[in-house]
């Protein structure tokens, strides 16, 4: 219960989201980008010195800009077969992801992924996986706002 309260305080939009629930234990092995790509054993983030020196932090697609600009994240997901689309509505043949940026910037902060039940899932940094009803209910001070939605064929 304590964890739930902590998350609700950090993401006030979830207080009005009836689909919010914690769906995993906290786990430092993977982050939101890895989770959006269906991995739970790697920390995916473009990196400078951190990438060279930090254990367990090793993965960013080859040939994609090593910056935190949202355009680099779009390129990374395009390599995974996703393309930019114009809405977050559920489409049974597609998996959708949402990319977030700090307000007023193009610096990417987070990614969430749509589940087969139409809800969304996010890995919150080092901590928990959560389910949320829409990609917008975790907007706020921490992740900023949804910058773009992408979709890829469901496999």
């Amino acid at each position: 219960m304590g964890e739930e309260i902590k998350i609700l305080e950090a993401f006030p939009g979830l207080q009005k989201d009836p689909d919010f629930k914690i769906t995993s234990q906290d786990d430092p092995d993977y982050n939101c980008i890895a989770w959006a790509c269906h991995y739970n054993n790697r920390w995916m983030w473009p990196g400078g010195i951190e990438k060279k020196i930090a254990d367990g932090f090793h993965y960013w697609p080859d040939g994609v800009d090593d910056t935190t600009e949202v355009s680099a994240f779009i390129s990374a997901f395009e390599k995974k077969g996703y393309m930019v689309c114009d809405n977050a509505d559920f489409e049974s043949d597609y998996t959708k992801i949402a990319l977030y940026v700090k307000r007023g910037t193009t610096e990417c902060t987070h990614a969430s992924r749509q589940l087969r039940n139409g809800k969304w899932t996010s890995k919150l940094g080092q901590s928990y996986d959560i389910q949320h009803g829409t990609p917008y209910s975790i907007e706020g001070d921490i992740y900023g706002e949804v910058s773009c939605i992408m979709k890829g064929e469901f496999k």
Partner: protein
Amino acid sequence: MQLNLLGQAIRPLTLAAGIALAGPMMYADLDQYSAITSVITSHRTESYLRQMDSNENKYQRYERRFKLLLQLWKQKTEFLSSAKSIVDNEEFKGIVAMGYDVVPFILDSIEQEPSQLVWALNYIYGVKISNNPNTTVKEACKLWVKRLRS
């Protein structure tokens, strides 16, 4: 009756005056739990105890500082995916700046609760624990604990 009261008032003053005069020759410690004052007059024992106190205080000071920095770092970064934001955090830098003195506390922490705190060891020692690119954070925590405690 009045003489008795006067005697009771003077006794602690006499004791305090005695301790003050002996000053540097003694080690005086007020036990915080029992409230018993012990006075040691041996130079060697006194300096040994002072050294022990000094070491203990340093250890406790570092532990307290580490715990505070760790708590703040967690609060500020636990929901972040950006490795840069996690290691550029002021509290994380504060932990790294404590250098080798903080290593025992980091090991205790990542042994009990594996986390990105292991990256502080990467910065303090300037190396990765494993050249295997598939090593996970939890595995890296175990490897660091094993190496530094063996």
